[in-house]
């Protein structure tokens, strides 16, 4: 450790700037050489990690006979047959109801989350209530409770009031699932609004609405968008609640996918096409929210 104390090199900087520059130039050589090796290694690993996704996409464009070969036929002819099959042109089983259910559940629950979370985040950052950290940790603790520990009462309740297989009940569940994350994320975004700007606006006599529109919204908007995308992803991906609380009418896309679990080998291309179609919204949302993804997934604790 003793050789790593920052004091020593700092003093040498003051003593002889010229020699430091020379030494810096030298040390920069090493990182550059390392970088090429690191770059190659990173690219190899990136390709390895992405290969199942690439293979999924490639297989989805193959015919069923080309898909189920050993060794794999990478150069086989491309066709849209699997997609036609998936959308039910030949089988008559349409994925559209489940896709629409998923879209409804994800979009509407995300809207509800934003409606509830934005005022809450405002009360936790810009005009903080007393003991706001305690409230924050209460929100977080609800997220840490496994869904399985509450699912039976939810199921029984839904059955009693006749809300089983009802998309609105699922929307409420997804709202509660994403609300804590959204509050945490949004608080960290609203906390970035500079205090001086708020004070200046207040002194100028701007009312709350004007402050929200002109001062807070411009700073917080990208964060709110990222929060919405992440809530959308979580709702779109969810399986356990959907499987227990929905059935024929309100089944979502992941529930539809479970129909392929014991699929026969001959439908490999169709399985891949299904996986591609259902993952597309998440891939788009995820790449769009890439920069803020970490902050969302770590509940706003890491930037």
């Amino acid at each position, binding site marked *: *450790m003793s*050789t*790593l104390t*920052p004091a*020593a090199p700092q003093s040498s900087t003051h003593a002889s700037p010229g020699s430091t520059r020379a030494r810096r130039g030298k*040390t920069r050589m090493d*990182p550059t050489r390392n970088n090429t090796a*690191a770059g190659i290694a990173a*690219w190899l*690993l*990136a*390709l390895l*990690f*992405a290969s*199942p*996704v690439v293979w*999924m996409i490639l297989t989805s464009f193959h015919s069923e006979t080309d898909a189920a*070969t*050993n*060794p*794999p036929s990478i150069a086989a002819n491309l066709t849209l047959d699997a997609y036609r099959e998936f959308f039910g042109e030949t089988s008559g089983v349409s994925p559209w109801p489940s896709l629409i259910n998923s879209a409804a559940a994800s979009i509407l629950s995300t809207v509800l989350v934003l409606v*509830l979370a934005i005022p*809450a985040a405002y009360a936790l950052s810009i*005009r*903080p*209530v007393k003991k706001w*950290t305690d*409230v924050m940790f*209460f929100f977080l*603790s*609800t997220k*840490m*409770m496994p869904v*399985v*520990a*509450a699912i*039976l*009462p939810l*199921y029984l309740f839904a059955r009693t009031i006749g809300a089983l297989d009802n998309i609105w009940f699922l929307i409420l569940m997804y709202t*509660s699932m994403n*609300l804590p994350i959204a509050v945490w994320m949004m608080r*960290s975004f609203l906390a970035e609004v500079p205090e001086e700007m708020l004070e200046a606006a207040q002194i100028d006599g701007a009312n709350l609405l004007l402050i929200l529109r002109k001062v807070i919204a411009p700073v917080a908007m990208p964060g709110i968008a990222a929060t919405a995308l992440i809530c959308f992803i979580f709702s779109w*991906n969810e*399986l356990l609640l959907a499987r*227990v609380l929905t059935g024929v009418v309100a089944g979502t896309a*992941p529930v539809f996918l*479970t129909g*392929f*679990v014991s699929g026969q*080998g001959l439908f490999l291309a169709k399985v891949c096409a*299904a*996986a591609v179609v*259902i*993952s597309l919204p*998440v891939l788009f949302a995820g*790449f769009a929210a890439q920069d803020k993804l*970490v902050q969302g*997934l770590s509940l706003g*604790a*890491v930037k």
Partner: protein
Amino acid sequence: MTTATARISRPGHTAARPARSAKSRERAMAWARRAPLLPALIFLIVVTQLPFVVTLFISFLNWNSLSPTKTAFAGLENYVTVLTDPDLRQAIFTTIILTVSVVLASLLIGLGLALLLDKKFLGRGLARTLLIAPFLVVPVAAALIWKHALLNPAYGLVNGILTWIWSLFGNTTPPQLDLLSQAPLMAVIVSLVWQWTPFMMLILLAGLQSRPMDTVEAAQMDGATPWAIFRHLTLPHLRQYLELGGLLGAIYIVQNFDSVFTLTAGGLGTANLPYAIYQTFYYANEYGLASAAGVVVVIGTIIVATFALRTVFSLFKKEAAR
């Protein structure tokens, strides 16, 4: 906190009025502050806390919905069953093995990837995007791909590549794996590590990029080896991020249902607690037993979550102090 109190007291207004009305004014203002928070708070308490209280209550009942007349108070019977029934006990062990191995493996690989991606190289942004992809495939879809397209013993990609490599050497009897039936838990672990490594990488990369570079540069000039820099500067800085990634990952992976359901349907000792609970109440209709198992999961999660909360709190305090 200091900024909060500073905003509450506005001396000019309160001093001019009589004490009582000032007090009620203050109370009204406190409620005005709380009002935006209440809908979210009340909603969450109703939807997440009440059901758990009901679960707790049901866990002490002898309740199988197929024989509703036999519903009665069971005391701790369900808990004894959870801890002694071979299947449920196996589910507890499976959950622990699954969680620990997936978290450790994805943290280690994620750390390696984050260290590589922290360096500048050609196409770094694209490589990062490719690496995030596994995390962005819908979990059920990912599990399906692993089951059918990659691990299928007859025509999966893994065996396909083995066949292809062996055929290059003129060998017509390549080794073929059947992970799904021979080591099903391993199949679940591999697919989960693949999906969770990007998550760990992203958190650790954020940690690396928040590292103060002046000390690293200083150490480099002092001739410290890369290993020494990693060991004495990078790792201590990353500690909180490693903890956070590990604990958040643990909380999500303990709850994993999709992979177990899709890849193995809980067969051959791969049923973890969420899957076992799902089966206990959904197919066996043993409501009391399922609830008791649910409470056991919560107790386990609370233990992990206490540490997680502490880590989040320390990072959070750092951010609040900024």
